[in-house]
């Protein structure tokens, strides 16, 4: 029985032999990367917007500035 690494390598070569599959793989990875980046970016942007609101409140509320 062939070692797992060899089998995997063979399967991958067969997979990437087909141009459609190779293009689909690259497209999928690009899409996944862009999607993950968009989600994380959105969450970071919301966090930054929230921190700006907090900074504004701190700049006008003496109690927020002293106690929080």
């Amino acid at each position, binding site marked *: 029985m062939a070692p797992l690494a060899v089998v995997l390598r063979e399967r991958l070569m067969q997979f990437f032999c087909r141009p459609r599959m190779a293009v689909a793989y690259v497209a999928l990875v690009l899409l996944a990367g*862009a999607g993950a980046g968009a989600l994380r970016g*959105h969450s970071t*942007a919301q966090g*930054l917007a929230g921190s700006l*609101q907090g*900074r504004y409140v701190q700049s*006008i509320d003496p109690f927020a500035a*002293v106690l929080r």
Partner: protein
Amino acid sequence: MNRRLLFLPLGLVLGVLAYGVVYWLQVREHRAIVRAPHAELAWLRTEFGLSGPQWERVAALHDAYRPTCNELCRQIAVQNARLEAAALATNRLTDDVRALIAETGRVRDQCRQAMLGHLYTVAAELPPEAGQRYLRLMLAATCIVEAAHPIDSAHPVTGAQGGGHAH
């Protein structure tokens, strides 16, 4: 290594690049705002869609209010320190502690009045609906209207009194 297998790491690199580029595009504007002067006012600008002249007037009002705010901050810090020292120096409610509590309340009221006055002047610079929304947001976020526990949650209603505060 077979050239075809290069698709595997190449795809991963492209995926990571796509992640980085999209992430950067999403946050670059916000990061620039955070680093800009008057960053705390940038929130107002984006949240309420202020025009250039409106933003300049609001920034001027903000700058004019700052010395008052700083002075009140100083008074609150001094008063809190005095009250804490007096409260820790005894184990009963002395006249001195009572007077300091009253004085702390006076400073707090003064602070709330100054802040509410500032909120009204800023709200007046915004379009009416935005001004109302600004006031609602700020009243919820600042100490002007103090947040308290819901009436029935911390003081359970007893006996046949029905609803209401159980003091």
